[in-house]
């Protein structure tokens, strides 16, 4: 029998794989709750728009979960995103440079649905890699 935390960790891992790696943007309808609170990208639609922007800039992007901790309703994930800068990214023309950046995401899972998300990313390292400085 799985604990609540194990089930929540699985839900978040499955969502990350479907949404961020397989780029099934409509998987939000399966994984996110009706009253989903998006604290990083304004809204569910904002989240989808951001994922589409990233996909255009880094078509080979790959997210890897490196650490995941569940406590009660909360799930905290450390992951990396790797990819090649092949499309415009916030006004910067494609450089062909590789990125390998760490980010954290924190989710709240209620009754098997993701009800809240916020995120943190190391943009200084990301811009440093994009510019190849």
């Amino acid at each position, binding site marked *: 029998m799985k604990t609540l935390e194990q089930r929540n960790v699985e839900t978040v891992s499955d969502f990350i794989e479907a949404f961020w790696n397989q780029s099934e943007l409509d998987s939000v309808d399966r994984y996110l709750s009706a009253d989903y609170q998006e604290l990083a990208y304004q809204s569910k639609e904002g989240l989808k728009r951001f994922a589409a922007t990233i996909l255009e800039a880094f078509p080979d992007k790959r997210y890897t979960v490196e*650490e995941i*901790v569940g406590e009660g309703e909360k799930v905290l994930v450390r992951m990396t995103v790797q990819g090649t800068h092949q499309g415009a990214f916030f006004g910067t023309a494609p450089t062909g440079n590789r990125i390998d950046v760490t980010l954290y995401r924190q989710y709240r899972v209620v009754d098997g649905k993701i009800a809240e998300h916020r995120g943190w990313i190391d943009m200084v390292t990301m811009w440093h890699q994009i510019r190849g400085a």
Partner: protein
Amino acid sequence: MKSIEQKNAEAVTAFIEDTANRRLLEETEQFFVSQFLKAFTDRHYAIDEILAQGDKAIARIFITAVHTGPFAGHPSTGKAVKATQFREFHVIDGKIAGHRGWYDTATLLPQIQAQ
């Protein structure tokens, strides 16, 4: 009776709040860390949240500082800034067996960019 997670969160809290550990809590593997520590002075640390599961505990630490030196191509602004650090701990038998830290820079950069 406290859970192992509650005890580990307490051990992590005590470790972070012990000023003798301050230098340890400032280091990360990010390439810019020495510049970060020179650019942001008068640093104060507060624990925002700790999440624990098994022998793992991750603290989100809230830092306030003043931007007094160049950072990531941005000259000093003299502004008060807020930054977030995550620090992951491995706790065994109530002792910190290892830890690693990481600064969020996505929320930091907009605070020091010219408007």
